[in-house]
């Protein structure tokens, strides 16, 4: 099975929930995944379907809504795939409230049956096959709009006096019963709408809000997606964890990859405070998501400020650790800028012949091998630090840029791009002024990009009322090799 296209064992996937929230899950054989009130399911049931498939969770009406032993294991399963089990507990994803409160509400549904939604092959077949959750809400909203059109063309909430839940004829118990019995969340919503006396009296906006609220609350569906860097970013965003990636937006990250001219054969010098997200994105462009077996593949030299490189998020990737260590070289700023010489390193090691080694006490032999391993590691670091002529310098760091960038620029080949990300525009402005007077950098440009999403339901199209702010800025320029002024006299 190709884990890039199909749900396969032993990979991480992104599970998208009707609440617009998502979670990262590990596809472990015989495991169970619990999605809180959205239901639970057996992992084995979804393996083999193409990534991108939407599933409904179906329950027999007899199943009780209690926390069974299976559920407990399910939630453990989920937790193990997460980084901060407490915060990522299922409950947190629906409510968005602090972890403490959620734990109280933590009650998983029992394991249900899985029904994949079939996609229609062509236009003829699919007239009635409206499936994905976004589509479904569109349908229901469309139906509601039709209703209104029949009633009164100036659809308003003129006569709609707010009487709270009185206008809603279904009780929440009735709804809960429906939820357990129903095959399809869509039916529930349809029933709710039918029972809502004043639905057709609401304005377009209130209808939209109402539909979307109900949709998110009652649909028991989920979609299993391949875990792209953008999906990962979106996941962190919904978790409220964007500060961890210095608030970078998807569109800014995408722009960075293009301006950096990232391609399979390149050797890139990267500094990144996003825990590996940016490296993961570069690797998608370079290697396509898994262990690509081609010649002349490039490398990423990852410069880290703290003692150890933080590439935590790479653990979700499909790359083998061998592949990663072959293509990602990590080195601290100290080791990079103040490398030891090979001579210095050699001084610290007494090189023994095989004979000599064999004569060593087993205890000392281990020490010797550790020392030798350290030596070879150090030697590789020295080699990395000695490499110049990188094909791109890609930065996402909060270190002062005016001091850092000209030093790193030394390692860049001529006619290669420098792309620097910053959450704020001001440090890039400062850097831009600095580079502007440095003849080794051509045309530094500070730029901003922003994706504005629309509600894309025909008849009610408008830009979303709110969207995320921030997202950061980029500075882009080309490294060049100025003429030696001495040569011009």
């Amino acid at each position, binding site marked *: *099975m190709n884990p890039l296209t*199909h749900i396969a*064992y*032993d990979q991480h996937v992104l599970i998208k929930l009707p609440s617009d929230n998502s979670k990262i899950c590990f596809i472990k054989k015989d495991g169970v995944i619990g999605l809180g009130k959205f239901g639970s399911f057996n992992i084995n049931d979804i393996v*083999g*379907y*193409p990534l*991108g*498939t939407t599933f409904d969770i179906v329950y027999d009406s007899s199943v009780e809504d209690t926390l069974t032993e299976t559920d407990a294991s399910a939630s453990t399963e989920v937790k193990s795939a997460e980084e901060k089990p407490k915060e990522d507990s299922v409950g947190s994803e629906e409510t968005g409230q602090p972890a403490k409160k959620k734990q109280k509400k933590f009650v998983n549904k029992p394991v249900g049956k899985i029904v994949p939604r079939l*996609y229609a092959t*062509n*236009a003829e077949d699919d007239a009635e096959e409206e499936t994905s959750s976004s*589509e479904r809400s569109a349908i229901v909203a469309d139906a509601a709009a039709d209703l209104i059109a029949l009633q009164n063309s100036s659809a308003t909430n003129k006569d709609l006096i707010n009487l709270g839940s009185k206008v809603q004829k279904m009780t929440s118990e009735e709804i809960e019963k429906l939820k357990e019995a129903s095959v399809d969340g869509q039916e529930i919503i349809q029933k709710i709408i039918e029972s809502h006396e004043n639905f057709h009296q609401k304005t377009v906006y209130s209808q939209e809000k109402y539909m979307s609220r109900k949709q998110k609350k009652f649909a028991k569906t989920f979609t299993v997606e*391949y875990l*792209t860097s953008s999906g990962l970013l979106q996941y962190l965003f919904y978790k409220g964890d964007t500060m961890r990636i210095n608030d970078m937006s998807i*569109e800014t*990250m995408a*722009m960075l990859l*293009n*301006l950096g*001219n990232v*391609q*399979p*054969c*390149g050797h890139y010098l990267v500094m990144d405070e996003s825990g590996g997200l940016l490296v993961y994105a570069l690797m998608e*462009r*370079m*290697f*396509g*998501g898994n262990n690509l077996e081609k010649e002349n593949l490039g490398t990423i030299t990852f410069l880290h400020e703290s003692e150890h490189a933080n590439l935590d998020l790479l653990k979700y990737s499909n790359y083998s650790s061998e592949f990663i260590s072959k293509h990602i070289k990590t080195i601290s700023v100290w080791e990079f800028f103040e490398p030891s010489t090979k001579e210095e390193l050699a001084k610290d090691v007494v090189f023994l012949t095989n004979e000599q080694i064999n004569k060593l006490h087993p205890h000392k032999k281990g020490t010797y091998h550790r020392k030798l391993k350290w030596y070879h590691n150090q030697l590789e670091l020295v080699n990395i630090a000695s490499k110049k*002529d990188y094909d791109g310098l890609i930065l996402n760091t909060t270190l002062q840029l005016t001091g850092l960038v000209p030093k790193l620029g030394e390692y860049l*080949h*001529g*006619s*290669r*791009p420098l792309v620097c990300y910053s959450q704020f*525009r001001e440090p890039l*402005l400062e850097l*831009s002024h600095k580079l*502007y007077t*440095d*003849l080794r950098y*051509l*045309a530094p*440009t*500070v*730029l*901003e*990009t*922003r*994706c504005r*999403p*629309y509600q*894309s339901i025909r008849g009610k*199209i408008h830009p979303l009322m709110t969207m995320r702010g921030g997202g950061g800025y980029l500075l882009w320029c080309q490294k*060049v090799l*100025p*003429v030696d002024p001495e040569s*011009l*006299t």
Partner: protein
Amino acid sequence: MTTEALHSASTDLASKSTFQSYKDIVQENDLVLIWISRDHIKPVVMKHGENFNTRYGTFPHTSIIGKPYGSQIATRTAKANKFGFIHVLQPTAELWTLSLPHRTQIVYTYDSSYIMNRLRLGPNSTIIEAGTGSGSLSHQLARTCGKVLTYEFHEVRCEQAKQEFKEHGLLEEDNGNLVITHRDVCNEGFKLNDRDCEASAVFLDLPAPWDAIPHLNTQGILKKNEKVSVCCFSPCFEQVDKTLKALKENGWQEIEMVEIQGKNFESRRQMVRTLDDAINILKDQKERKDAGIEKRNKMNKKILTEAAKNSKTENQTENSATTSKDETKAEVEGSGTEADKQTDATEQSPQLKKPKFNPFGKGFKVKEGDLNYNWIQVSKMESEIKSHTSYLTFASKIYDMKRETEPNDQ
């Protein structure tokens, strides 16, 4: 190392397109981008014996061949002791977008980068692009994707693009990864003569994408049992509406329209003028007025004229600040380059400079960044911004979904 030695040393890479690899040294027959200024980048094929002419002087190709990419090249201008400068860059898809001959509206990097990300393009992707247009996006796709199938219905434009792709080494027949077809996909669909497309992504930059969308259902166009994505690129709202309808009717899912808004900022400086400066100028004016020193006024006027001659007018300063570095590089004398470096060096401690009292007030033109004054760094938005290119409508679908029953890897 001589130019010849370098030449032969890098022949291994010669088979790969310059848009899909990195080159070290400029060789004969290389396509290079010559950077004159931000708005003036020229693609040139290097030939011994030929010249590249600018208003700053003539650059023999021979003076470029053999130099590392990124080199600044100098030439003596007509005026004695002055030099003109250019930079020689290796073409990349993004730089090409800035330099290319516009045959049609082009897809700029703000849009293209987002599209490529959203369509999840990478070495494993096969993408359909219709239409080719000026080929700006095609270059970016060829850099990133495994295979690019591009369609252009305008015969002349198609030929022009094909020629360009050939020169850039992108065509499949020349060991590249791009296939261009002259075709009206709205009427004739996407089917190629020699094979199935088996595309994983589709980009439609057509006036009526809704006519092309049903053709995507034809057997062999899109990959089966795998999520495929489409992006439609349309400037008008009504086009989006029709596209949404067609996508829905053809069973596409996750339909979402977005627009991308990108902005560039210039880095500029604003003079620090304090209230005390202003009051002192008024006092000074009053004093001179009271003393009735008309003579001094005349002298000042003379100084002013002198100074104005040496500095630039405000308007010119504005333009030159935008491009001054480029101009500096292209226009200044050898010694000017030194002066520039000095600016850099002194830049690091601007706070040491005392703000000088400016007796001429606002009327006096001061060059932006003049070290006799204090400045704060400011960002200036372009005076005209690209407020709209097109709406991007995305959707995804799985054709012939079925469960893989025999997992190989497990």
